[in-house]
């Protein structure tokens, strides 16, 4: 089962070779990327079947942890590895001029995302996080509309990386190890103190840049408004979720303390409120989607701040729902950029796109039979179970945010279906590929409604496995010398 490492390595290999292959044969170069992502899908699938849901760890280079680096493979990691390969494949830049460099960067993004899902070592996570950042800088800058947002994104991202690195360094000075399982073992004695909390806050803010966490998300609207929509879809759909996954792992394993949860709850709630209010005021489709994405990610963080399995379950549900809905919305918005008022009657020119948009909007708001409703219900129920005024305050905040969300999304839907439009300028056609891809996301949303019970069952088992820190420690066998050293410390 150690072939799972291939989902990180093969895309990197392909990325290194794409420029050369593309020079020899353009068509082969164009086919290499999708082919490799297909192989990654297949590998993840076979490993998932082989492991039968049991978590296992592989030691890269054959060195026992915590000396070497461990990849920890459980249901959650496999799920996200699978979704990474799938989303990259679905959002692959098939159309337009063929640029090998763009393909190479997309492959690197895929490799690093797979690494983030699998890695069980704090510094290794940082390396993959940095790799995701650098690859996304390049992809964002391909928009050509303006490079200023990309540069601001680069600066904020770099700042975040520094914060995260300082946080990791603090953890290392306190414990002397970087392996997550080992850290989890040492955390109760070494990290439940102000320094541990500060380290968590730094890592949270640093990784939060990609996860669109409240104070460090100012890059989101302008980057999503100027980057190519497929890139926005990848960043909002995939990369933000992987950053949230990293934070979830750290929260469960290393920083399982009450104050850390409160910090997350507060920042998440602020994200929900500011994101939804800003989306309500936004005048541009892409910006509105970006702000709404901030709100949704805030909800994920609020959910993760509920201790135990309930929070993980609700957070994963919201994250996965957003992962399906937001990329599709960005694809649909590709031709609907510019002022929202210019969209009056756009449904007349393109009925399927407008209908799909309505479906996703309904699910995002949480209209009952659609998956978005069940995800929000889980969150609301989880918050209601908790004692403490802050949780109930968050509950109220989320309900109010939902009303705001409903208001602006339905406003757009009614604009799209506006009947007597004042002679709309030549209807902007969507490319067939975008519509088909969005249709694919829509179909999976409908399928999720039909398969709701088995899906929620399997998500519950994933949440159970993820929230169980003791099981994680049991899977990773540490080298004997260091574990005894740890006890005597």
């Amino acid at each position, binding site marked *: 089962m150690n*072939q799972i490492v291939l989902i990180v390595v093969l895309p*990197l290999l392909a990325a290194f070779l794409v420029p*050369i292959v593309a020079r020899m044969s353009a068509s082969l170069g164009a086919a290499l990327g999708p082919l490799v992502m297909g192989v990654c899908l297949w590998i993840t699938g076979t490993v998932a079947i082989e492991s039968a849901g049991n978590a296992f760890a592989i030691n*890269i280079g054959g060195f026992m942890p*915590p000396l070497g680096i461990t990849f920890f493979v459980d249901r959650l990691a496999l799920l996200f590895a699978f979704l990474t390969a799938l989303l990259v494949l679905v959002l692959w830049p098939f159309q337009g001029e063929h640029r090998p460099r763009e393909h190479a960067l997309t492959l690197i993004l895929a490799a690093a995302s797979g690494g983030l899902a699998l890695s069980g070592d704090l510094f290794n996570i940082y390396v993959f996080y940095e790799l995701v950042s650098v690859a996304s800088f390049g992809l964002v*800058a391909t928009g050509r509309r303006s490079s200023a947002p990309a540069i601001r994104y680069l600066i904020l991202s770099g700042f975040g990386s520094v914060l995260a690195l300082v946080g990791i360094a603090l953890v290392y000075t306190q414990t002397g190890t970087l392996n997550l399982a080992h850290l989890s073992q040492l955390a109760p004695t070494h990290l439940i103190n*102000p320094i541990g909390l500060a380290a968590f806050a730094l890592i949270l803010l640093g990784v939060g840049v990609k996860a669109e966490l409240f104070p460090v998300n100012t890059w989101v609207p302008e980057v999503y408004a100027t980057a190519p929509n497929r890139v926005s879809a990848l960043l909002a759909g995939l990369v933000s979720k992987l950053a949230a996954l990293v934070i979830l792992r750290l929260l469960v394993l290393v920083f399982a303390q009450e104050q850390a949860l409160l910090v997350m709850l507060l920042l998440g709630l602020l994200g929900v409120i500011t994101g939804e209010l800003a989306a309500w005021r936004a005048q541009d489709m892409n910006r509105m989607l970006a702000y709404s994405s901030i709100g949704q990610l805030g909800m994920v963080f609020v959910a993760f701040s509920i201790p135990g399995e309930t929070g993980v379950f609700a957070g994963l549900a919201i994250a996965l729902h957003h992962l399906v809905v937001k990329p599709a919305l960005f694809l649909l918005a590709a031709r609907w950029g510019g002022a929202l008022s210019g969209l009056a009657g756009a449904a007349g020119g393109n009925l399927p796109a407008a209908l799909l948009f309505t479906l996703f909007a309904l699910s995002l708001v949480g209209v009952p039979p659609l998956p978005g409703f069940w995800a929000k219900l889980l969150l609301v129920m989880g918050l209601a179970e908790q004692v403490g005024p802050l949780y109930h305050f968050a509950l109220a905040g989320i309900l109010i945010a939902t009303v705001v969300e409903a208001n602006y999304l339905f406003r757009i839907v009614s604009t799209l279906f506006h009947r007597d439009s004042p002679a709309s300028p030549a209807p902007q056609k969507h490319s067939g590929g975008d519509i088909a891809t969005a249709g694919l996301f829509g179909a999976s949303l409908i399928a999720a409604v039909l398969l709701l019970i088995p899906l929620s069952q399997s998500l519950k088992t994933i949440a159970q496995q993820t929230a169980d820190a003791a099981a994680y420690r049991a899977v990773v066998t540490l080298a004997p010398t260091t574990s005894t*050293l740890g006890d005597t410390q």
Partner: protein
Amino acid sequence: MRNLASLLFAGGLGFLLMVFGLQFDFGNAPMLVGQAIQSAAPEQVGAANIVTAVVLGYRGIDTLGELAILFAASTAVGLILGHRHTSTKPDPDSGLILRAGGELLMPLLLVVGLYIILHGHLTPGGGFQGGVILAAAFFIPVLARPSTPLKHTGMMLIEGFSGAAFILIGLAALYSGGEFLQPLLDKGTLGNLVSAGTLPLLYLAVGLKVGAELAGLLAHLAAAEVSES
């Protein structure tokens, strides 16, 4: 408003730093993994330079990640600067002294760079450091003669194949029954030039890749400068 928010953020960060200052037990950091690696590395990896044992052995996949970061950065630069036309004339060649100096320096830098790369598992140095020197070896002649730029094709080939070689060595270990990037071949005697198994080969791949990458990056930037002016 924006200033106020930045001020608040900076204040919070300052408070955090103050907390560290008060709480920190300086000079007594636990060295769990560090000590374990120091005692185990010579026997497990066989590299006299323990830093190399960490960089290529224990944390080899991190190094692969670093290589990919460098590759992503230079690819992004190429993507952004790539479609500019170099219609303007490059700067004229510099005088005799600079040209002759550049030509003299190149072989020296090549030797030093390769030496540092190939002795990376024995003495301080290695692929990254040596690679930078190799890049300088190729870039100094370009500075002396701006009219004869680097050949992108050659750089691209070295870059791609050396990166692929690093991964293929790792995959060879995976397919011979071990784990990805597990050191292969005989460890030899500690301190010999031919020792530490596949580590010197990995460092050679790293060095060539870093060298080609940086030289390509510098050439791109130089070309962009020309077209800007």
